[in-house]
């Protein structure tokens, strides 16, 4: 997991090209102000998925922040399109989805859309910056298969669910088993860590 964003951390988004998408003009204004405040100079706004798709076809973006609930085509369908048809320069970029409420029927769709993070509305600058920092620093693998394209959804790898063997090839059994060798001595452990003074 990436480390948390500290107030004293330095970030530079001046050269980042960001697309913001929301069908509600007032909400898009808020989002644009927030992202501009972070220092983004190349900010593109779209009020419909069709407009966003047109921009994706002609420009290279470094981040997309999109609303979920939109008429005609929603944010979930947009991200699914992006991950499959967004072109090689854009289809793997970080995406943050924003939603005020998730319909019961869309919970799994939202999880499987392929976004990097979902942020709850009403949007606050602090939370959005923390999530941008998070997606910039995360090291999740991308998964691409017939039914899903996006960052690995199982980023909290805490082993297989209790009582199962897991589905990953590298899943280890929950039971650790008996020790095969005697416990290491303190010296052996210290040697593994090799603490040493350094001159700074």
């Amino acid at each position: 997991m990436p480390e948390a964003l500290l107030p004293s951390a330095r970030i530079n988004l001046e050269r980042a090209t960001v697309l913001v998408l929301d069908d509600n003009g007032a909400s898009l204004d808020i989002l644009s102000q927030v992202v501009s405040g972070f220092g983004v100079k190349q900010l593109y706004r779209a009020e419909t998925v069709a407009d966003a798709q047109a921009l994706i076809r002609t420009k290279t973006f470094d981040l997309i922040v999109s609303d979920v609930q939109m008429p005609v085509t929603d944010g979930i369908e947009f991200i699914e399109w992006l991950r499959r048809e967004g072109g090689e320069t854009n289809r793997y970029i970080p995406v943050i989805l924003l939603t005020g409420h998730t319909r019961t029927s869309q919970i799994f769709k939202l999880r499987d859309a392929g976004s990097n993070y979902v942020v709850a509305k009403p949007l606050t600058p602090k939370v959005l910056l923390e999530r941008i920092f998070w997606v910039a620093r995360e090291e999740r693998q991308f998964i691409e298969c017939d039914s899903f394209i996006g960052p690995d959804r199982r980023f909290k790898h805490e082993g297989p669910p209790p009582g199962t063997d897991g589905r990953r090839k590298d899943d280890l059994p929950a039971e650790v088993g008996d020790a095969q060798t005697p416990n290491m001595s303190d010296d052996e452990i210290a040697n593994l860590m090799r603490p040493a003074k350094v001159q700074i």
Partner: protein
Amino acid sequence: MTVRKFRPPNRLASLIKDKGGILAKDAVAAAEAGVETLRESSMAALDEALGEIDRRFGKAAPDRASENAEALYLLASRVIDVSLFVSDAGIDKAAMSLCGLADSCAAAGAWRWDAVDVHLNAMKLLRAHGAELPGEQRDAMLQGLYQVSHYKPEEG
């Protein structure tokens, strides 16, 4: 099924580390200052959405039975969108509860007007006095709305 696992280059990761830039706390402060300039227009958009909800779905709306739940869902979503400046009044949470109610009405294909009326009355009260209410009372009201919106008659 073939599954491909890989790490695509993350341009944002390298850009954000570029020399220069600003402190995170200054970025948040600049964003908050920018958003503050939108207070008036956001509040106007909020009141417009609340007004439209009342006109179309309030007790006095003559044709509310012919409206569809999707329209109410979208209007309640609009309230959440611009409720940043009134989150201390609890309107965002009441609107979330209304979204849940509209979603369940849409799924059931039937309105629950009593529940809609309770939400609309609560949102009017929260808009007018929500921020001044004692926190416990406001939380109790929001909890009540949540229970109303998630009530399933078959579960009693």
